[in-house]
């Protein structure tokens, strides 16, 4: 990449003409903005940006003229063509990022008028924001803070038209502006109401994060990134049902090839849904974010079609509501669900055979263990429920661990989970559990969806995030039908039922310092994690709920969005009033000469000479002389000089000098 960093090269910095120095500095800042997102940019964009920046730096160093208009037009055409070829659009998020970076680089070839420079600065601010699409870590934040200071420095420097001011001077001022601007930033950040996206966010590039996809590839993801993006918002008509019943049903996966779980072949013989519900219904309104998938997520289980105007819905045998179109926009619907229900055939029917299939020869140890469990006398006596209980007890007591960093699994994922690694997140656990059940001759399947959520105190909406995505199991029992079993709850009770989440363990410094000192590594990691956690808690997870908690702390009993705006406006009004008062005060006091004369008048009054507001210094001096004679000479002299400071034609005496003298002067009494 670019190695031209003018700040690191004082040897050049001293000798370069101002134009070249400023250009190199700006190029360095642009490189700093682009560098953190290098891994997310298409290769052509990187090549173009690096090439153009290096070319521009060379031109600046050699004081050569900029390339002609046709060069820029050609490069712009290349950019647009390459963006279209890579992303098939110019409008999506990733296409936009590539375009902004390429345009930012291209615009440096046109640094002539003041307007061109301004366009660079504003494109630079956009390019800084695009970094946050990919990472909002503390390091990214620090890099972008540096970049913002760099851009402000370049901007300030561009408005120092005289001579060749040192860059440090502009940098100091930029730092001062950012420092003084920080309270404004803080107030706005804390109080600006966090509102829902103004329109559906394009959900491109969400892969590799938590969420629902319709298939489940077990053991392929070494590290699961929890995506705090919102999947859906629910407004319950009454009270929110118990958390451990909040299973939002998504696609049901029953076809397993040893590695990947898929939905059953649509042409396979479907089981009848055969649904019976009990108890009172739960009524709610659901707002589903655009998911690009056809499923309408509902609370388990929803017998009647959700009321979604203009959308054709059908229910699958797996009790999932599916639309004919993928959900491309924010979708709102009403639904009525029952948390107590019974479904599926009560008698063993041939179609259940689909839920017993396992790839031949796979997971031999699990299969052997299943045979063993089956032969257990307790299981023989108790049937399927006893088998499930035995497996769950084994999960609870066998030293199994819930982790978001399980590493990549081998071919026999269930064997590896049960006997070797004993660690994984919900999909490992559910998959291993279902394989065990099937091996033991119990029909079982995986249900994906969302579990839990959190209440947003502001609007009373229940928020389901992508990080709430979950996978659980359903096993078939004679006479009962499908029964939900959540094996993850046995491994990590915290995963289900509370909203505590397992934080991903950052492995940034692991190993690097081990050779030096194990405790140092530990301490460093602990400190880093603490810092990162505070960052996550206070900056990245600063949500509507937190805003309202804050309002509660400052005395609002039932805070709402309006209260946030009220506090923000109140703050603005208070600051403006303060400013106005200060201005008034300054205006009344603004003439330092009059202020000094007023002080002198006060001294005269102390000495017993009554002088009016309109008495000129000369007369004050005369009256001092009358009263005290030679004792007052120094003071009289000072008063006369004060007068000449104001009225003499010659070069005026510095008022600050007179003021300093005033404090030292011994006034006669």
């Amino acid at each position, binding site marked *: 990449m670019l190695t031209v960093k003018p700040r690191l090269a004082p040897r050049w910095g001293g000798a370069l003409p101002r134009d070249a120095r400023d250009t190199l500095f700006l190029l360095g800042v642009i490189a700093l903005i682009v560098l953190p997102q290098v891994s997310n940019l298409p290769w052509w964009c990187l090549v173009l940006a690096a090439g153009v920046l290096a070319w521009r730096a060379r031109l600046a160093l050699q004081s050569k003229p900029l390339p002609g208009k046709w060069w820029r037009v050609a490069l712009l055409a290349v950019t647009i063509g390459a963006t279209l070829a890579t992303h098939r659009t110019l409008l999506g998020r990733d296409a936009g990022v590539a375009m902004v970076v390429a345009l930012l680089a291209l615009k440096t070839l046109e640094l002539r008028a003041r307007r061109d420079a301004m366009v660079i600065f504003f494109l630079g601010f956009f390019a800084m*924001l695009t970094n946050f*699409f990919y990472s909002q870590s503390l390091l990214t934040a620090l890099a972008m803070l540096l970049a913002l200071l760099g851009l402000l420095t370049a*901007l300030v420097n561009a408005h120092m038209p005289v001579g060749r001011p040192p860059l440090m001077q502009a940098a100091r001022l930029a730092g001062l502006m950012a420092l003084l*601007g920080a309270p404004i*930033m803080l107030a706005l*950040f804390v109080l600006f109401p966090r509102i829902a996206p103004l329109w559906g966010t394009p959900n491109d590039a969400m892969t590799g994060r938590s969420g629902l996809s319709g298939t489940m590839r077990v053991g392929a993801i070494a590290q699961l990134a929890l995506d705090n993006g919102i999947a859906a918002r629910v407004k319950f008509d009454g009270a929110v049902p118990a958390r451990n019943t909040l299973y939002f049903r998504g696609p049901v996966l029953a076809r397993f090839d040893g590695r990947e779980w898929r939905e059953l072949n649509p042409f396979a013989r479907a089981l009848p849904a055969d649904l019976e519900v009990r108890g009172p219904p739960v009524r709610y309104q659901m707002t589903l974010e655009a998911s690009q998938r056809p499923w309408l997520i509902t609370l388990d289980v929803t017998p009647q079609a959700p009321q979604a105007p203009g959308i054709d819905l059908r229910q699958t045998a797996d009790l999932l509501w599916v639309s004919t179109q993928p959900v491309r926009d924010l979708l709102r619907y009403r639904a009525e669900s029952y948390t107590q229900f019974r479904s599926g055939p009560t008698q063993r029917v041939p179609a259940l055979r689909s839920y017993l299939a396992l790839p031949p020869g796979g997971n031999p140890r699990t299969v052997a263990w299943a045979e063993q469990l089956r032969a257990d006398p307790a299981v023989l006596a108790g049937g399927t429920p006893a088998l499930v209980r035995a497996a769950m007890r084994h999960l609870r007591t066998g030293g199994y661990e819930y982790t978001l960093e399980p590493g990549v699994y081998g071919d026999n994922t269930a064997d590896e989970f049960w006997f070797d690694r004993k660690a994984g997140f919900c999909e490992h656990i559910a998959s291993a559990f279902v394989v065990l059940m099937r091996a033991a001759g119990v029909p079982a399947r995986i249900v994906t969806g969302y579990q839990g959520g959190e209440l947003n105190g502001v609007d009373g909406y229940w928020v389901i995030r992508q990080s709430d995505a979950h996978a659980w199991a359903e096993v078939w029992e004679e006479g009962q039908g499908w029964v939900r079993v959540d094996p993850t709850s046995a491994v990590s009770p915290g995963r289900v039922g509370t909203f505590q989440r397992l934080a991903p363990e950052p492995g940034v410094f692991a190993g690097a310092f081990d050779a030096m000192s194990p405790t140092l590594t530990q301490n460093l990691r602990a400190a880093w994690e603490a810092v990162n956690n505070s960052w996550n808690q206070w900056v990245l997870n600063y949500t509507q709920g937190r805003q309202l908690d804050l309002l509660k702390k400052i005395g609002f009993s039932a805070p709402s969005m309006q209260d946030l705006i009220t506090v923000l406006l109140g703050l603005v009004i208070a600051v403006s009033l303060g400013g106005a008062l200060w201005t008034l005060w*300054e205006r009344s006091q603004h003439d330092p000469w009059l202020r000094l004369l007023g002080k002198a008048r006060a001294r005269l009054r102390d000495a017993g000479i009554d002088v009016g507001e309109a008495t000129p210094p000369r007369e004050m001096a005369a009256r001092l002389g009358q009263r005290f004679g030679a004792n007052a000479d120094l003071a009289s002299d000072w008063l006369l000089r004060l007068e000449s400071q104001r009225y003499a034609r010659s070069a005026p005496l510095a008022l*600050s000098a007179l003021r300093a003298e005033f404090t030292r002067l011994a006034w006669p009494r």
Partner: protein
Amino acid sequence: MTATAAPTGLRGRIDQWFLSRRPPSDRLELTQRNVYIVPTAAGWMLLATVLVLLVASINYQLNLGYLLTFLLAGSAAVGMHISHATLRGLAMHLTPPEAQFAHAAAVFRVTLHNVRRSTRFGIGMAVRGSGHWAWTDVPAQGSCPVEIAFLPHRRGLHAMPPLTAETRFPLGTFRVWTVWRPAASLLVYPAPEAHPPPLPPGEPVAGQPTGAVARARAAGEYDGIRAYRRGDPLKLVVWKKAARAQAAGSDDLVSRDTQQAQREELWLDAQAAALPNEEARLSRLCAWVLMADRLGVDYGLRVAGRSVAPAQGEAHKRQCLEVLATC
């Protein structure tokens, strides 16, 4: 002297009213009352940028995006105050301008005083509406001179045109400016004609013979030497004596003294200028005055019923030019 032109239209009248509110003074201290601020095109662009950043932060729910947006907005708000403070508190002092020739580039000298402990950067000064900016930085607790270029158009004694000081420092998002009406007046001489005809012939002084003088001058008869006077032509300087004086460490020059008693007088007369247009006549007279002064001859001026007796030297030249400017 565009400002003295009659106001045209509503804009002109508003302008006139605006100017009339400023009492003329050769010293101006800038305060909250006379410093104005408006956003520039770049400022509006920055506002648009901040709004787009805000929308992006909302739509992608980027808390770090909010931080960036608000820090940028906060810095711009602070920048606005810094911008205003760059002019507020500045004192400007006008050195009374010297007389100028019309249509010749000239400068006003203004001194900017800064009592603040920090430098004021990027202050531009210009004659209001001229667009010829002189940029300067004013050092902390110091002062700096600024030369403002201007082009006087009409001869005469005029009020100074209003001056303006402006800054866009530090972010270029706000234009902060002030308007200053100096109290000093400005004397503008007519523009000297570019290629004037030779000087008119001398007029004989009543009762004196003429021929001998002309011959004596042509032959270079001199009466003696005297100290150099400003305005003496170079050919009158006695260079040998000057070289000796320089060697002795003195800068004094000596000139040859011509015969004081002239028998012929050079009168520069408006009627002799032989031009129909009065301004053109004055231009020619002006050129003649300068020419006669260069030649070091005595000359008198008669124009528009006023006359200046023949003499020479700097003071005489000024007197003649003043008559030409104000007649």
